[in-house]
């Protein structure tokens, strides 16, 4: 079989089934043969294999050539695409948020870490299902034979300019959904650890603190002085986690989220300071770990204070009053 026949066969194979395949291939064959003849008379000799191959290659890959005759419908048309992304984003964020919040609450209620881990697995599975279902719904709407356009079928053409929401007052950029989702996952884990759900705290401390301490054979446990710090840090962790998941659903609340962080940090600093004012931190009172615990708490206050300062600076920079003039429309 010569090169041209193979090329034509490949094109024919890739043509849409309902098209006049033989007809299209015959026309392409004639065009290629005419090109070859023209080239031969220009060169003054029959085409070599390389020259023929170059000419055929310039005509295009068989699939590409065949695709030009096809009338491939959109999976989701350009008109409905923005609404598809919107539906996908909204459904994904709401379902993932509900699942993660549910998992955290169930973990606290049952004193077991399992529901929290299961909720992450469920959120991942839901995400895959949601992408599939939303895509299928839009693809079906795109294909239903109807006199109405896809936008009319989705009910979007009924929008009313008078009902558009007002632009947000705050000038701060929305939080990235990824950032707030990761923030919530770790925030919730920290909360579970603080509440000692399902012995999480035991594992944390065992791995990071107690095991090395046990190796050093130093008897130690926390005194009642820790209570204010514990209560304040637990509440502020819950506040931060709650606002993280809220910002995941609605990224435009970035300023509220940041203010909450500032408030939570201040609360933690007060709690830790109250703990520092008491002593001893570690029992027995003469334990050498007392000094280490004191420095650790001072370090925590410093870190929290720095974080608060940075958040406040960002908040003041994006103060809506200060930015109102810059944002006014020409």
């Amino acid at each position, binding site marked *: 079989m010569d090169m041209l026949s193979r090329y034509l066969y490949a094109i024919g194979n890739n043509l849409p089934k309902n098209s006049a395949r033989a*007809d*299209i291939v*015959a*026309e*392409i064959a*004639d*065009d290629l*043969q*005419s*090109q070859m003849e023209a080239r031969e008379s220009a060169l003054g000799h029959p085409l070599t294999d390389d020259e023929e191959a170059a000419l055929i290659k310039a*005509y*295009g890959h068989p699939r*590409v*050539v065949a695709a*030009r*005759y096809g009338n491939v419908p959109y999976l989701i048309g350009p008109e409905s695409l923005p609404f598809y992304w919107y539906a996908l984003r909204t459904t994904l964020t709401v379902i993932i948020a509900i699942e993660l919040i549910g998992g955290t609450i169930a973990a606290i209620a049952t004193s077991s870490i399992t529901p929290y881990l299961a909720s992450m697995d469920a959120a991942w599975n839901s995400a895959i299902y949601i992408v599939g279902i939303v895509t299928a719904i839009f693809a079906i709407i795109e294909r239903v034979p109807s006199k109405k356009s896809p936008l009319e079928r989705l009910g979007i053409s009924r929008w009313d300019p008078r009902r558009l929401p007002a632009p947000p007052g705050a000038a701060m950029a929305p939080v990235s959904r990824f950032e707030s989702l990761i923030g919530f996952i770790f925030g919730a884990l920290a909360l579970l650890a603080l509440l000692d759900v399902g012995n999480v705290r035991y594992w944390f401390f065992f791995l990071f603190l107690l095991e090395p301490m046990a190796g050093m054979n130093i008897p130690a446990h926390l005194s009642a002085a820790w209570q204010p710090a514990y209560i304040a840090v637990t509440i502020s962790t819950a506040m931060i986690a709650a606002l993280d998941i809220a910002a995941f659903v609605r990224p435009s609340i970035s300023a509220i989220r940041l203010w909450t962080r500032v408030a939570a940090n201040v609360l933690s600093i007060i709690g830790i300071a109250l703990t520092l004012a008491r002593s001893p931190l570690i029992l027995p009172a003469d334990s050498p770990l007392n000094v280490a615990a004191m420095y650790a708490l001072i370090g925590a206050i410093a870190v929290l204070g720095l974080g608060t300062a940075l958040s406040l600076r960002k908040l003041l920079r994006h103060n809506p009053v200060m930015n109102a003039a810059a944002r006014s429309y020409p």
Partner: protein
Amino acid sequence: MEHGMDQVPGLFENLRLELRRGCLTLAVLAQLRSERYGYTLRKALEEAGLDIDEGTLYPLLRRLESQGLLHSEWREENKRRKRFYRLSPAGKQILEQLVDELQRINASLERITSES
């Protein structure tokens, strides 16, 4: 934002193709006032200064025929079967309307570009 001379690579090419797309249909219809087959049609357009590659031309011819603007028939010429195309009566009518429209657009563009 001022970009000056640093335009996005391929931008001119994209805009040029967009501009050409409608004009090519008109040129093909106009050339087919007399009967031609694909290869000679392409050569005629090339000589007139409008290059069109086969990958664009043949699907275009097929679409115009399915829209009833062209007639085609297979005939033998130089010992090979070739598909000859010519304008249908509906095609003639559309061509006249398109030429009028193009002249109107050209006149408007002339005014707009000479103003600026």
